[in-house]
């Protein structure tokens, strides 16, 4: 595991901020990233917004990838990981453009990398400890089902696999740049990391309620979310892994088994 010998996160770090019509919020997110995580370059993925998300992001000093049309969070995030991969970033953190992830908490994710040098992928959990996060009961139940299922599959306890607040190192970035789930990718991405035998860890974080905009997961869509992700998870169990093309760099091969 060369490349993981570091004492602190002074390497090249990128904050990927997916934003779809978040003009009311994305400026504050970038501002907060600048203040609380100054070592992170900020890349906003404007996922085909029809408002001034891109303009506001550029004025706030972020680099902006403008998707030509709305790809959905999976396609948008993968574009960010491709950018990170091509620009040779060592770490990429995902921070949603709606302000629900507090950039001050990136430190908590980074601490896990400092603590355990073999970790490749860290995600923040709202439920690992009392965090003040209040979700509707139905959503909590849905999350709990996925948490239970994933814990079962991976034989490792996870509490919040739907959390979008996550920090990836070079190997995980390379994996996601090549292969990333299409829509509602969070749960599947964790399974992908697991299937490719990268090491993952969950750390407790606080998350705010959404400051503006709307979650991509409305009540109407949550049924589809459950069905789609369940299908993906269950089919994924019988899918041959790794699904990446042979000959890809070692970052995504499974040679460093657990």
């Amino acid at each position, binding site marked *: 595991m060369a490349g993981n010998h570091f004492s602190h996160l002074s390497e090249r770090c990128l904050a990927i901020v997916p934003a779809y019509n978040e003009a009311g919020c994305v400026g504050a997110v970038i501002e907060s990233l600048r203040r609380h995580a100054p070592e992170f*370059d900020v890349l906003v*993925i404007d996922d085909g917004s029809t408002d001034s998300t891109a*303009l506001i992001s*550029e*004025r706030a*000093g*972020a*680099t*902006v*990838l*403008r*998707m*030509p*049309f709305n*790809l959905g969070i999976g*396609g948008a995030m*993968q*574009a960010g990981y*491709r*950018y990170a991969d*091509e*620009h040779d970033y060592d770490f990429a953190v995902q921070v949603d453009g709606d302000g629900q992830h507090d950039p001050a908490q990136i430190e908590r994710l980074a601490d896990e990398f400092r603590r355990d040098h073999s970790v490749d992928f860290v995600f923040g959990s709202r439920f690992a400890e009392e965090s003040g996060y209040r979700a509707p009961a139905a959503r909590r139940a849905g999350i709990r089902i996925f948490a239970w299922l994933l814990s079962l599959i991976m034989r490792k306890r996870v509490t919040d696999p739907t959390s979008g607040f996550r920090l990836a190192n070079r190997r995980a970035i390379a994996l996601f740049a090549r292969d990333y789930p*299409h829509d509602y990718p969070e749960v599947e991405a964790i399974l992908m990391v697991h299937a490719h035998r990268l090491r993952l860890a969950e750390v407790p974080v606080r998350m705010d309620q959404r400051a503006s905009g709307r979650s991509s997961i409305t009540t109407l869509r949550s049924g589809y979310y459950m069905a789609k992700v369940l299908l993906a998870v269950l089919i994924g169990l019988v899918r041959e892994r790794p699904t990446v093309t042979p000959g890809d760099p070692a970052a995504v091969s499974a040679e460093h088994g657990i």
Partner: protein
Amino acid sequence: MDSRLQIVAVLATAALLLVVLELVRRRRVMERYALLWLLSSVVLLVLSIWSGLLEQLAASVGIETPSNALFAIAFMFTLVLLLHFSTVISGLTDQNKVLAQRLALLQQRVSELQQSGDRRFGKPSGEPTHESNAPERELTRHG
């Protein structure tokens, strides 16, 4: 099978076959997507003309009216075609996603290069560019 029904069936499947061939000739349908259509229409045409085979087929799987066997086979082909389209659409969706991502990445790169070029060659800062205001630190980083 009733001879009137047989005539209609033959005419209909023959028409389908001809339409498919014509679409391929005009390049409105690619050969690779026409193959399943051709197979379907040829099989249906053969079974409409050769009613003895259709009757045998129907009897062997327990369908009392041979024409129902023809409908069942046509329906099966329809399902196969639809499934085939779903796989094709999935592939296109994936390619479309990759193209969109590449486009966005290239667009960002172009505007970055354009700006560093503008600065290097001392264009006035008011010079209009397509994409505005990539941050200063990006220039020192990659420029």
